[in-house]
């Protein structure tokens, strides 16, 4: 029921183990191998340490905040700066020519509702008084029939007011 073997047995085992180690002992490294190992260790120690990854985001945020603050200051300054005063010409140097105004003869009214005609004034009201010519005031100089349909404009006979009507061309 004893969990450990007797002391003599353990001594025998250790001696056997030592004997096996002596027979198969590993070769001692040569001075050249030791030198290589030493150089590798030295190189590793000389290489600069990489920056701590947690520091970069913090530095970026600080730079961004600084830029935003700088932009805000510039904008605020520009708002506070008064605009340059306008250079006003002396009164005597101002152009004194009258505005170019169209003459009545330069205006063409292509179409206007009759109700609005007298809202336009070209020297006088556009429609004004509707006065028709009286008998004897119109002198017909020449009439020519329509070449296609043969109708000709003539003064309506027996009319106190001259009216131009279409009449069939005389043969």
């Amino acid at each position, binding site marked *: 029921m004893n969990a450990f073997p007797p002391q003599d047995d353990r001594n025998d085992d250790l001696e056997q183990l030592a004997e096996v180690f002596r027979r198969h002992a590993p070769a001692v490294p040569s001075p050249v191998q030791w030198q290589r190992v030493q150089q590798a260790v030295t190189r590793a120690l000389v290489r600069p340490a990489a920056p701590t990854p947690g520091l970069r985001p913090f530095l970026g945020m600080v730079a961004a905040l600084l830029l935003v603050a700088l932009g805000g200051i510039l904008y605020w300054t520009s708002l506070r700066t008064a605009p340059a005063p306008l250079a006003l010409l002396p009164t005597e140097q101002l152009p004194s020519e009258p505005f170019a105004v169209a003459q009545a003869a330069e205006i063409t009214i292509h*179409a206007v509702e009759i109700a609005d005609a007298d809202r336009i004034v070209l020297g006088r009201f556009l*429609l004004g008084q509707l006065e*028709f010519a009286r008998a004897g005031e119109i002198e017909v100089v020449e009439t020519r029939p329509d070449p296609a349909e043969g109708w000709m404009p003539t003064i309506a006979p027996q009319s106190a007011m001259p009216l131009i009507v279409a009449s069939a061309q005389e043969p």
Partner: protein
Amino acid sequence: MRELLRLFVGSLLALSGLSVGLLYACEKPTEKKVRVSVIVILASETDATTDPKLEALAAEIRKTKSELKGFRLFKMACKSLPLDQADVFELIDDQSATIKIKSTADKLDRVRLEVHPPSMGKITYSTPCGKFLPIITRFKTKKGEHLLFAIRVQPCGEDKPK
């Protein structure tokens, strides 16, 4: 010395005259224009309503064309026309009248003009300033209204350009 002075003064006067002549020649001549107004009138055979401004004309037309009962003013156009330059006045639908000033106002304030009413050949007449001459065409609109138009020329003596 006196000869030289005469030559100098003579040259100066000649140059002045030449300059004045050139300036006068370069100045744009004032173009005579006549303002032509055209009113478009529609006459109905069914609607007896007549514009009060057209009562006198309507009464005169009804003497020969009793079927025309009502008269109304439709629209107006106004153009300043130079001499001998025809211009087209749109009336209604695709109907138009061509008007040309043949001579500007004479001493009696009369203007001669040439008119091509739609489908009626042409008429040349002289008219006093400021008065309309009505022309009854043969055209009827889609609504059955008869097309009339009247022509007036201006300016008259009192408002001619000086």
